[in-house]
């Protein structure tokens, strides 16, 4: 068996029992999915390969830690910042604003 190409290259690796539980898709996950599809449709990224490439650049720890749509989100953010569609400083400010809003809602 050859060495994996990266954290995404899981075929033939070891793994534990499969969790067969069904999970509802949360609304934020639909929103991320829609964001990726709209980014493709509007030409903000070129194709799914670009998104997958970003996912494959995640560190092994990050890959393992993130859920499916978190990987999508991180990859799309990477692609849009790299392309100059989104300013990294503004993105960081917005992330801080989302966190502040959530903290305030949690405290309420």
């Amino acid at each position: 068996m050859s060495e994996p190409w990266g954290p995404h290259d899981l075929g033939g690796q070891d793994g534990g029992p499969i969790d067969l539980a069904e999970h509802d898709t949360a609304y934020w996950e639909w929103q991320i999915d829609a964001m990726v599809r709209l980014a493709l449709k509007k030409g903000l990224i070129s194709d799914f390969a670009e998104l997958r490439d970003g996912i494959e650049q995640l560190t092994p720890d990050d890959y393992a830690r993130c859920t499916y749509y978190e990987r999508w989100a991180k990859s799309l953010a990477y692609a849009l910042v790299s392309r100059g569609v989104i300013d990294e400083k503004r993105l960081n400010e917005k992330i801080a604003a989302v966190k502040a809003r959530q903290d305030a809602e949690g405290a309420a």
Partner: protein
Amino acid sequence: MTDHDHDHSRTFQPDHAEPTSDGARIGLALRELLIEAGHYTAGEEQSVIEAMQGASPENGGRIVAKAWNDAEYKERLLANGAEAIKELGYELEPYEFTVMENTADTHNVIVCTLCSCYPRALLGMSPAWYKSSSYRARVVREPRSVLAEFGVELSDDVSVRVHDSTAELRYMVLPQRPAGTDDWSEAQLAKLVTRNSLVGTERDLKIA
């Protein structure tokens, strides 16, 4: 490889709209910036989500039932899945679509080891286990024991074919028609078909 089965270790409740993980926050922040900058509108987002939510394994069930009842259609479906599926009015994303037929001595199962490609346009959202690290890692090497975890016990004289999907090529399994359904209508037959049977993690469909 160590403890890598984290894909869905954190389940977000459907009513908890904004999970507080870093990854999800990046997504939410990105979404707000794109909408504020006018790249797309909340209305467009809603339309896309509704369209995605409209796809379900019932679509696969109708295609399978048609194939069971119409030998010529089945032949076209197995020869060129995408074209035959479009015949029934379904819109597919631009990728190849291959339908693999289960028989008495062959069982097919699909996976996407590298990411989690799934025939979403047709079958809707993929199940969590399909996206899990364990399924992706193990089904290509030990399909029989993985299938056993799903309750599918294959005898040694049934061969297993595992199909690894890509962004350009998606698969669907054509399950076997259950015995005793010769005089059933297509609509009745379609109801027998389950999501897992279309992926290959179920083999013998039950007559209710």
